[in-house]
């Protein structure tokens, strides 16, 4: 059984992943609605990067849960 602080840490990582994904999606939405060279450049640099980091964070949480022996 894991302690509450470990659960709080996992929630913290998940929240961070949600925020990073939301930022990437907002940039994508801005680009889809009206393309400007500046938005495009910003999105190309940060969009996939933020989504990638969010995915790594989610993967980390999943691995930690699996290690703790909990079924997803």
């Amino acid at each position: 059984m894991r302690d509450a602080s470990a659960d709080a840490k996992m929630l913290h990582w998940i929240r961070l992943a949600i925020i990073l994904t939301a930022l990437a999606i907002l940039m994508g939405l801005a680009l889809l609605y009206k393309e400007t060279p500046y938005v495009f450049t910003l999105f190309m640099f940060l969009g996939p990067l933020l989504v990638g980091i969010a995915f790594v964070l989610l993967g980390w949480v999943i691995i930690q849960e699996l290690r703790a022996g909990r079924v997803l």
Partner: protein
Amino acid sequence: MKPGALAALAVLAADRLLAAPETEGGVPPPHGWIGTTNEWIRGVGIVMALLNLVLLIVIWGQLRRGRVSTVSKALLFGAILVLPVVVVFLATATGMRESMTVEACGACHMMDGHVRDLRDPKSDSLAAVHYKNRYIQENQCYTCHSDYGMYGTLSAKLDGLGHVWHSIRGDYPKPIKIAHPYSNLRCLSCHGESQKFLEKHEKEEIPKLMAGTDSCLDCHGPAHKPQEEKAAQK
């Protein structure tokens, strides 16, 4: 109403909302009864992005209430991996396509003069002649200023990145000049095989043009007459 039908209606509404604007002459571009592929990519991208944001908000609310169920974990997987990948792909496709337009090139202040010249029916620069006669149908800047194939596209995008950087820093030369000598092959890729070109050029001239020892611009041109420069000269 079923969620599938609702989603289809939302995509159709987005498609109508985002329908391509009329061209400068007021002629609508041909796009059939249900829109072009590009309009669909954009419309579906916007719907997916909004759906993704809604899902993230729902999951955030569940986390705050401390109710992390198996369903919310599955939603999390969809909202952090599946949908964002789709949105990033569609947004990138839209951005790549839109960055080829004359409007995208003209978005930076230093290109105003070139774009004004391009669109000036009275101008006799090569760019204006190609534009007003619609020798090039669309993406006129990109068509002449990018090489062909995948490497050409990537190279043009990297150059564009440099342009954005210099535009932000304001350290571009005034008046702006082309960074590399203009390749004749870009002219010849359209003109090279035409009868008009073959009739008007000596056979011996063509290898010289291909090799770049002679330039098309030695006899034709100028390529651009930036209108600020003309105003400054008066």
